[in-house]
């Protein structure tokens, strides 16, 4: 059976020490363990609530929906995880470092409830792809997933350290040029 890939990233302005970021880290950290279905839903419900709170502070984002997307899922999670093997190097240009990148990745068996739900949410004209309202709608979809029909999921906060952050300049540059400007 083919699987659908659904991925969402948001670059949120959240400087070191920002309570919102501490809450996000606390939520993710508390769920890094084997999880029952209810806890998966709890994790994504909490992340979704936090992302909705921060959506107005998100200038860049990305989302994708790929039928038969097992390789996309693997590429995304491996790419994010492999990046973490390099020691963190802060932006040395003097730009304000006040952004974190939040990533949500899912692998969903096709024709099952979660894939159908996400498919419906992503069925949008291209003119809507960058709209803030679209991102809001997609974030709201996360806790609505039927986690019995989720094969794989991944949640990442980059950077992970409380005192580190991207600059917006970095997220607009090489390696992150796929990020869309949210309108």
């Amino acid at each position: 059976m083919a699987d659908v890939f659904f991925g969402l990233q948001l670059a949120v302005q959240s400087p070191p020490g920002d309570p919102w970021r501490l809450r996000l880290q606390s939520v993710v950290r508390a769920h890094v363990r084997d999880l029952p279905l209810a806890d998966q839903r709890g994790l994504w419900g909490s992340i979704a609530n936090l992302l909705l709170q921060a959506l107005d502070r998100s200038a860049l984002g990305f989302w994708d929906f790929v039928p038969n997307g097992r390789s996309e899922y693997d590429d995304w999670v491996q790419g994010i995880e492999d990046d973490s093997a390099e020691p963190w190097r802060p932006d040395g240009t003097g730009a304000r470092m006040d952004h974190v990148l939040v990533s949500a990745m899912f692998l969903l068996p096709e024709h099952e409830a979660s894939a159908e739900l996400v498919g419906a949410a992503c069925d949008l004209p291209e003119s809507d792809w960058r709209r803030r309202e679209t991102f809001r709608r997609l974030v709201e979809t996360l806790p609505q997933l039927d986690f019995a029909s989720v094969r794989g999921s991944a949640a990442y906060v980059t950077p992970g350290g409380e005192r580190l952050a991207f600059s917006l300049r970095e997220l607009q540059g090489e390696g992150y040029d796929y990020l869309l400007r949210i309108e």
Partner: protein
Amino acid sequence: MTGAKEPFDLQVGYDQDELLGGRWWQQGLAGTYATGIPTVTSRIGPTRIDESRRSALKMLLGLGGFVVVAGLVTTRCSSSGSHTTTIDQASLDLQRSRGLATGAENVAFEWPHAVDTAADGTPLSALELHRLAAELRPSRNLEEPDYGPTLFQCLQETGGAAFSRQLRLVCSPQMRAAYGRGEAIRELLELAEERRAWALVVDLPGPDSVAFAAGLQPRAVAVFQFHNWPHPRGVVPAHLTLAAAAYYRHRFGLAPDAEQRAVCYVLDRDRLAPYANQPDRFDNRYVVRLPTAASLQNRGIRRVLYVVPEGQPADALDDVAERLAEYAAAGIGVRMLGLGDLTLAPADKVPGTASSSYTGSRYYWHGGPGHHYWFWHHHDWPSRQAPVTPTRPPTSSFGADWSPTRARPRQDLAQVGRTAEPRTTSSGSSSSGGSWGRSSGGFGG
């Protein structure tokens, strides 16, 4: 494979400077991944990983920044091939996974001073309850990151529906008094030279804090910081705080002068209520994080008023003391206001023009309009001209000699809001025994 095994295996988890997060796989849906039952040590890493991922894991372990085991294993015993381990975890996580009233599903919440309608005379609808977290969000984006709506969000989470059916509005005499005292401070804020340079940290019992903040409206943006869920046997009676917020909810939507409002951090003083691992209590306590001094200064805040109940020592609670000291060190004026200094004036001393929810009598600082406006002289803070000539109060003010000092670090704060849960492990498989709060007859500490 046992049916009790968690459906989502953690394949890999990261907690390091570069990355925080994890990747999960649902074994029941997987056709190609190994399904062996992991032991605690074999959970470190995916059940099957490629070599590049494995090398990354080795590096992670070398950094010592890897978090996988769920909580702290505090005790372990073994008999007849089965083990009981006690898992220490955040109480809120436990409620999220097992339900709001976990372990006490048949215990009713108590609602002293219940009323049928909110402060504006309207009943409470289920729809409004579900919108509470959005409705009570700070009205300025600037304060949004400091908002702690966890308490208001419980209604949409596991067990929230059953709780919302029980929920009653409450309005106690203490809340009415706190509201009137908030009104008195609101009147002073009217005369503040620059209102947006003010931050109030209202640290009263939850329902009273909400009422006080309601009395301040519309002169201060309320930023609620309630980071727990109610529980029928909770150490913190958070259900009453939620009920008070629902009672006064309409007061917080008023913002005619969004640019010229103070900010008010609304805390529940019972968040650090005494708790000694009593087995019949559920530890739903928590700590708060006020914004940093730099954050306040970036917003132009130069004065902080820390509001405490009467009859308490002139001290800041341990989780905010450090921050208040940081404010003072950064040059922000930090003062204490004891509610006991806001006293009711008899009707014949109340000017006819004053507006208040009280008919006949109202609250003033030191009991009368003359002393009331001395507040500015007492704190040496600038204000515009008062409507009456201020006079020095005959008695000293609570906390006049107080200044914030860094609290001695309390290691036990890290254990606030945590619950121990027995789990049974049999034949090498780890599963939740489902006996938490039942077989033990209470809550672990």
